[in-house]
């Protein structure tokens, strides 16, 4: 099996400090007391749901930012 290696190892720099940003979602979502509440509501969604759905979007943005910066 011959594979084309299109990624030259030298192109990948050492881990950028920006990658630490990727840790943010873990405490934010795993520490439940941060968000286990009904109020304040947003568009009828209790805070419990708004918060976690907001973090889906935020995590995507953080990952995208780190991708763009470290590439």
């Amino acid at each position, binding site marked *: *099996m011959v594979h084309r290696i299109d*990624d030259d190892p030298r192109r990948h720099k050492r881990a950028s400090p920006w990658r630490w940003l990727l840790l943010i979602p873990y405490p934010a979502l*795993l520490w439940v007391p941060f968000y*286990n509440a009904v109020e304040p509501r947003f568009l*009828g969604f209790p805070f419990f749901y708004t918060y976690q759905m907001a*973090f889906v979007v935020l*995590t*995507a943005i953080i*990952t995208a930012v780190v*991708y763009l910066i470290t590439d």
Partner: protein
Amino acid sequence: MLRRAERALRRSAVPSLSRFEKTMPVNWIALTVFVICFAGVTILGFASANWRKGDLDLIHEWGLGGGTFGTLITWFLIGGDIYTAYTFIAIPALAFGAGAIAFFAVPYTTLIYPITFVVFPRMWSVCRRHGYITAADFVRGRFGNRWLALAVAVTGLVATMPYIALQLVGLEVVIAGLGLPTTGVLSELPLLIAFVILAAFTYTSGLRAPASIAVVKDVMVYIVIFAAIGVVIYRFGGFGPIFEAVPAAKLVLATPPAGSTGAYTTYATLAFGSAAALFMYPHALTAILSSSTRDVIRRNSALLPAYSLVLAFLTLLGFMAIKMGVGSNPLYTDLFKRYSNTFAVPALFLDIFPSWFAGFAFAAIGIGALVPAAIMSIAAANLWTRNIHLEFINPRATPQQEAKMAKLVSLVVKLGALYFVVGLEKDFVITLQLLGGVWIIQTLPAVLIGLYTRWFNSWALLVGWAVGMGFGTYAVAQTGFKNATYTLSIFGTQVPAFAAVYALIANIAVAVVLTLVFNMAARPERRDATVAADYV
């Protein structure tokens, strides 16, 4: 077989009873739309053999699609892989029955992506450089220990089988939603037909089939979810009234009682443990390795959360089912009795959508069962072929023989899954899948930590794996195989958590201690087929 005949007999012995109960008639319009959609993807599945044509007699082409998938196809493929038919049925069902705890699926499917972003480009690189196609291949090369590789392969196989079976359970529930008979001799027929379709196109087209079908399935799922949100806004002016229908005790997690961390640690460990386990599943790695560059994986880590948002709305369908009162609708009583809360989503679709669109929505879920079931059976076949057959039975197999073996095994695996669904009690299959999650995470030290360090002694890893498997199984057995929560008393505080996480901690602790002990007794292991440059 005997048991099945017995069951069929028992069913046919009481027809007079059901004749007087109010049962759901066959919904012909929904059934027609469902069949048309299924026929369409069947054709697509077979046609995929010619897509980006490769030599399908080679395992790398059949089992990894030649490793040519770009960002978009990988997005659909992983999406079809993670967000399965069973997810679409079970998570809203949990919300319908138990409330807020079901929402753990959202942090779970969010927290996987930063891990994916950092870890899996490394996995992709080392596997591409050495021609590895399974996690056990990598472990074999990295640690040079065929028994450790065997442990990883066997864990993958036993965790995957019930997972495939659950996809067929998801299919069974939507078929029931079409009003087809759920008892009697003919009741297993639709499932058998779907199964034959699945087996045939997987056999002929390999990973290309689920990759192309995933595109269709995901587009359908997105349409259904937007339609459901549309219905909510049109009928109720927003989600407020939906949440108001949920009993206060279920709307958020219960505040832990004194001296316990209660639902909080259960929720957090379920989310984190599931996230850590996910990419240890063989089918997830298959999708990762089929991408064409490591950049595809990094890019997808930022794009895939779109599915998690869809999953959030899907979970809320469970609350919508509460609002619509489908549980007390006499039309669905029978099916709720038979399928319990898993019938919540089909009942809701029948309730809020016109027949033709309900058929479309059911087809979306049904096709959503075919995609992961195909990928899972391919991944299991790769494991068997590479890490058991090639390693222990016939080391001299040619690549063509390997591919042939993998194709056959993909059939056997699916037959096994079919037996699970038809021959075993449903609760038992769900228990097995639960255990599968606890088991698969025990391969994390060898696979995931192994990507970063060769420090561990391979035998220490193997003993750690055994301890994790044993403890995890024991912990789930303590609950009577009902759930995977285990309560540990830490400094006088009760800490209930996902058993997989405790078992993993025990696993890693044993591996660390034994590595130190072994390194004192003898020279550290040197075997390693990989070098640092392979990972970047």
